[in-house]
Structure formats: C-alpha cells, structure tokens
C-alpha cells in the first residue's frame, strides 16, 4: 500500500495499491478524492450518474477485492490521467468533453482561478460581458 497524492479538481492523498499498473483505492475514498460516488447505477455526483458500460474497468474484483481503480474511474468519467509511480502522484485532467465543446460547440469552458493576491475568480463572474481571455507568461 502506498500513500499517493491525487491532483484533480483539488489535491488529496489516499492510500492505494499500485500493483498491476492500477491505482486501487477503497470505494469509500472516491467522494473525497474525486468527488464522485460508486453506486449500482454507476458513478454519481449530485443528480448526475454516469453509467458504467465496463464496470470491471472501474472495479476489477478478484484479488482487488472491492477496491476501485482510479485510472478506470478517470476513464469512465472521460478524464485523462497520468501516474508518476516514482513519486506516487496521480494527475487527473479535465473532462475531455469540455474541450470538445469549446472546439466544436464554441462553448467557453468554465474555470476558476486566483488573481495575484490569491482571490478566486470564476469566468461566470463576467457572464453578461464580452471578454478577452489573454494568455500570457513571464517566459
């Protein structure tokens, strides 16, 4: 068992079994780590449930017991994931559907970021205005 760090919508640490290239955690940890709950109907959050066409990818069973594979959960949620085993760090990206909506549906994906003083600002704060999103950098 390894204490891993999950970088998703927020940062959390969780005890995981990394054997077999999987990231197996107790199902009870899912809400805290990724914000979703595993139910018979699938992965659920608030009123939304994502049905699992391949439940074994999420909950392999067998020697994994009732543990869930975070890599399988991420895939079921349509989110990319990358594991750096050496540092026991798992990064879970945004739902790929959001970027597709931006590219094909021209819907600007929502986000919330801090200003230079640390105060969070959400895109929707300016929803009734025309906006320029200007990405720049010190480099």
């Amino acid at each position: 068992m390894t204490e891993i760090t999950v970088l998703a919508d927020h940062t959390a640490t969780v005890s995981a079994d990394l054997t077999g290239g999987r990231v197996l955690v107790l199902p009870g940890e899912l809400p805290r780590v990724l914000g979703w709950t595993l139910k018979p109907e699938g992965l659920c959050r608030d009123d939304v449930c994502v049905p699992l066409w391949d439940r074994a990818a999420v909950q392999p069973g067998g020697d994994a017991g009732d543990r869930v594979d975070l890599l399988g959960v991420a895939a079921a949620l349509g989110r990319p994931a990358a594991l750096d085993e050496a540092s026991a760090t798992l990064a879970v990206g945004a739902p790929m559907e959001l970027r597709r909506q931006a590219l094909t549906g021209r819907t600007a994906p929502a986000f919330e970021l801090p200003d230079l003083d640390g105060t969070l600002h959400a895109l929707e704060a300016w929803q009734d205005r025309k906006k320029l999103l200007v990405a720049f950098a010190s480099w």
Partner: protein
Amino acid sequence: MAIDDDPAVVRPFTDGITMPVLIDCEHLLTELYAISNVPTVVWIDEHGRIARPNGVAFGTDTFKDFTGVEAAPHFDAIRTWVRTGEVDIEVDDAEAAVGDLSEDELRARLLFRIGAHLRRTGDDAGAERNFATAVELAPHDWTIRRAAMPLRGMDPFGDPFFEMAVEWEAAGRPYHGIPAERTDG
C-alpha cells in the same frame, strides 16, 4: 491569464493593467482551451460563446520586428466587435483552426502539473523527471517546453529558447490556433 508559477514573477508585468489578472499555476487553461503558446487571445461573448477562438495577438509593438505583427489591427478588430458584435475573422470551424490536443500533448500537460507540484514540495528530482518527459511528449508546445525552463533552472531567454525556436520552425511552427499572419486579412 498568466500561464506562470509564481505571482511575484508575474506582478511586474501587470503594472498599469486595470483588467483582472489571474494566474494559472496548474496550466488548467492550456488544457481546457487547447492553448499551446502565448500570447493567445480568445474572444468570449456575453452568451459564453467563443466568438473568435485561439489566436496570436500582441498588446504592443515591442516585438514587431521579430514577429512581423503589429498590435493595432487586433485592437481595431476588438473595438469593432465590442461596438457591433462583428468578428474580423469568421472561423466557422474552430476545431480545424485550433485543433484538439493530441494524446501526447494532453499527457504532457498532466506530467507538467505533476512536475510543478513536486517542485513546490521540494522533490526537485521528481520535478525534473516529469518536466523532462513532458517536454519529450510535446517538444513544440511552448506552454510545456518553454514554461518548464525557469522551473528547471534553464534560461527561457537563452540557449534553450533558441534551440526550441529552431526546432519549432523546422516542424512548421505548430500552433493550436489562428496564426498571427491571418490578422492582416
């Protein structure tokens, strides 16, 4: 939006700016909006619709001689858009103009995020391992390769930058968005 790691480094660039300046340490926007270089400007209208997708535009003429791009045309286009709602370039197919991130470019962003996290926690070897792999996966992505330079102790205005620029030119100047040339109409 500063695609940067440290507010203190960004602050000097914001002198005199009255618009909100946010910082994207985790490179969430480069993932959500498929941004691969700066400066990139996206026009979002009052209905949350992307009126004009990722494009290169400069706020000043500081680098005009290097880039061949003047700031004025874009400013004029923005003013027209604000007044009339008209966009200077009708990009019907934003997906074709911007292009979705490849699997490698996406994975590079995740590894960059891990690298940045490890650097903050003091695991420099771990940070370097992830930054290096991210750069291998997306060698022509400026938000990966050049953004990582100051975090890896490399000079983003020195040799590593010139090496990247040469490779990027040779690769055909890949960029997720409307290239600068098109602002001239």
